[in-house]
């Protein structure tokens, strides 16, 4: 894994150092690190000649630009109306039981973080969840257990 400053300068080389490159760069860091640390944001501020506070303000606006330490796999359960109607709570209970963490928490081995999120756009196949960028739909407790087992083996 590259050092944060190396990663950031390579992202900045790729996307540019103008303000409009900020989101792609933040997304690039998330892809590798799963979250934006204080040091990372400082390094971005330095690289792009932007105020660090501005980067913090911008990052915290977006739900997917996490600024707290995340696990390797971030599980986001859709909590909006249809998923909520179609058994989202069951899904959460199943995952909580399997991973022994609550919503908002990360497993001690930093492998999984469990979060809820707003509408994922899979209402016709509710309930749905994301694990990092992968979508899983029409979930039920069994299916979730299966999916998680494959991640646990990774």
């Amino acid at each position: 894994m590259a050092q944060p400053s190396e990663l950031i300068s390579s992202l900045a080389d790729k996307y540019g150092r103008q303000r409009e490159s900020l989101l792609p760069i933040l997304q690039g860091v998330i892809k590798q690190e799963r979250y934006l640390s204080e040091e990372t944001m400082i390094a971005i501020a330095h690289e792009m000649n932007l105020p660090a506070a501005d980067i913090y303000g911008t990052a915290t606006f977006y739900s997917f630009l996490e600024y707290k330490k995340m696990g390797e796999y971030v599980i986001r359960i859709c909590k909006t109306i249809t998923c909520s109607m179609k058994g989202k709570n069951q899904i959460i209970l199943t995952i909580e039981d399997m991973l022994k963490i609550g919503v908002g928490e990360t497993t001690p081995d930093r492998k999984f973080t469990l979060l809820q999120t707003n509408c994922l756009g899979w209402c016709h196949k509710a309930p749905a969840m994301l694990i990092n960028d992968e979508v899983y739909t029409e979930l039920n407790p069994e299916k979730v257990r299966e999916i998680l087992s494959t991640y646990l083996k990774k």
Partner: protein
Amino acid sequence: MTREYNLKRADFIFRNENDWEHILSRTLKKDRRELINELISSELKGRGGAGFPTGLKWKLTSESEAPQKYVICNADEGEPGTFKDREILMKVPFKVLTAMAICAYITGANNGFIYLRGEYKFLQHDLQKAIDEFIYYCNDINFKFSIDIFMGSGAYICGEETALMESMEGFRGEPRNKPPFPTGQGYNRMPTVINNVETLAHTYTIFKHGAKKFYDLGVQFSRGTKLFSVSGDTPKPGIYELELGMSLSDFVNDFGDGDTKAVQVGGASGFLVPRKKFSETNIGYKGKLTGISLPTGGSMMLFNSTRSMYNVLDNYLEFFREESCGQCTPCRVGCQQLHMGIKAVKQGQKPASYLEKLLKLTETMQYTAKCGLGQSVANSFSSIVENFREEMIY
């Protein structure tokens, strides 16, 4: 109440025609003004939900003088209950790309963007491949145009066009003051056409088959077809292309589970229609002479009698209080007050009459919020509270 229209299915958007190269090169040879007039005469209105006339938007942008113009495809599909845009981009991306190029040709833009919501990241790879192929062809026919994907990062409000532009410029996705409008000052303060994915796909139909074909579908003020994202208590959830102007009772007859209590038209920012109003409600844009017309981005969520309307409203309000950008008072504080207010009534900490206070508050939100998000919270709130008042209290 006279029934004006029956449910009519259509198949334009997803019909895989594989003729985009032909349509593109043919259209790029036509006169720009004629193309705009064609589009205007189709009476196509924006399919994201707001319903602004598409032809007029393109015309205004084409008339703006500027060193640079942009075409943006709004694929920040975040309205609860909407998922059609993803299907379009997955199944018929070339229609959208072709429409963007035609729009660029008409308006004088050189650069296009697709703002793709972060939740659809898995689409990025295939879409990029389609773009590469498309741009290769554009180069081939000597049409100078670029299309880049800009990924969102999880913010419903970025579907609002000026918030989307702020986001693309690297800022918090906060809606701007309007005027100026994007047709004059959009992305990077340059004239910009920003259209919903589906709107662009319809323009493909119009440029291919002519405006008349489109205009002949639907009803007065609501021409053409529309994709509907159907979910909730229905035996057949999915995406359906239907002619506009249908009555809600016809819709429920077709899609309901036999026990439909209410339908949420237009997602969380739309209206909840109770069973007793199905027959007088039509799905289309304002201007019809009889009945109620509800414009919609295409989200149709059905609820049967097992569902608590209090829970539905509670879910929407939680959504809005989290997804409001937070900059303007009525939306930021209003959403919190509405959400906590219905809880307080439900739990008996506030009297039932407090609902009236909250209804007045939503009126203020509607009149004074800076953008469509805060303005439309009143829609679901008032339609649920007024029609299911007893469920809010007991």
